[in-house]
């Protein structure tokens, strides 16, 4: 699999979450995702970037065009050095929240993408990688 140049956004404010949405939208259009898939990916990115800000205390988002030889797509990596997630299964449950939200961010975002990987360690941070492929 080959990847293009990554574009990176530091996430420290609400405004950066908007910036992440706009960057993901631009790249999603460039790799020719369908309109519904663009919408799903941008929505997932918005949820995860907000998590990076609210729960992770800020971090970085990296957007990369990828190609596995058959299809092209987008990979987005959200990384923070926040408190980590102690109980991942619980955090991925619909409706579970510690932040006063709806508890749909993580579980909902997972449903909106094709691949979803999460690495987290208490006290060290969380890295979430999502990929959406063109159909």
């Amino acid at each position, binding site marked *: 699999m080959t990847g293009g140049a990554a574009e990176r956004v530091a996430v420290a404010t609400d405004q950066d979450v908007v910036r992440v949405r706009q960057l993901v939208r631009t790249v999603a259009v460039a790799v020719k995702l369908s309109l519904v898939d663009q919408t799903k990916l*941008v929505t997932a990115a918005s949820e995860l970037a907000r998590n990076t800000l609210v729960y992770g205390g800020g971090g970085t988002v990296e957007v990369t065009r990828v190609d596995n030889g058959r299809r092209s797509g987008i990979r987005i990596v959200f990384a923070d050095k926040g408190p980590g997630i102690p109980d991942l299964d619980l955090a991925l449950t619909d409706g579970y929240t510690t932040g006063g939200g709806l508890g749909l961010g993580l579980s*909902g975002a997972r449903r909106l993408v094709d691949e979803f990987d999460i690495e987290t360690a208490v006290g060290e941070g969380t890295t979430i990688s999502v990929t959406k492929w063109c159909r």
Partner: protein
Amino acid sequence: MERVPVLKIGDILLVSIQIDMEDQVALQLQEDLADRIVATGCHGVIIDISALDIVDSFVGRTLATIASISRVLDAETVVVGMRPAVAITLVELGLSLPGIRTALNVDLGMELLAAARAEAEGGAGHEDTDEPAVTAP
């Protein structure tokens, strides 16, 4: 920080969200609308989201909260103009916006509000006319 304008048209407050809102802007809109409902005594709120290319859980929750606040302040909220891709994504995200009335466009939203208002007033009027008959000796 940008601000979403709230326009008064007759008995209705109209909000057309034309920007990609930061979370703070959405919260500010929630407050502005509550203030304007009380200040104007309007009984209807129309929120046009036709320019929004996504509605995530934060914006969805804000819309639901606005609808609840409006109802407590005797105003009905109708969200209009949702794009098909946004509707598909919202449902997959797990957000079905319970308690929010929707219409396809502003025209239909205004019709919906007028009908709801007529029903509310008609219902009250009906009770008024019935009352003497019930309480008459």
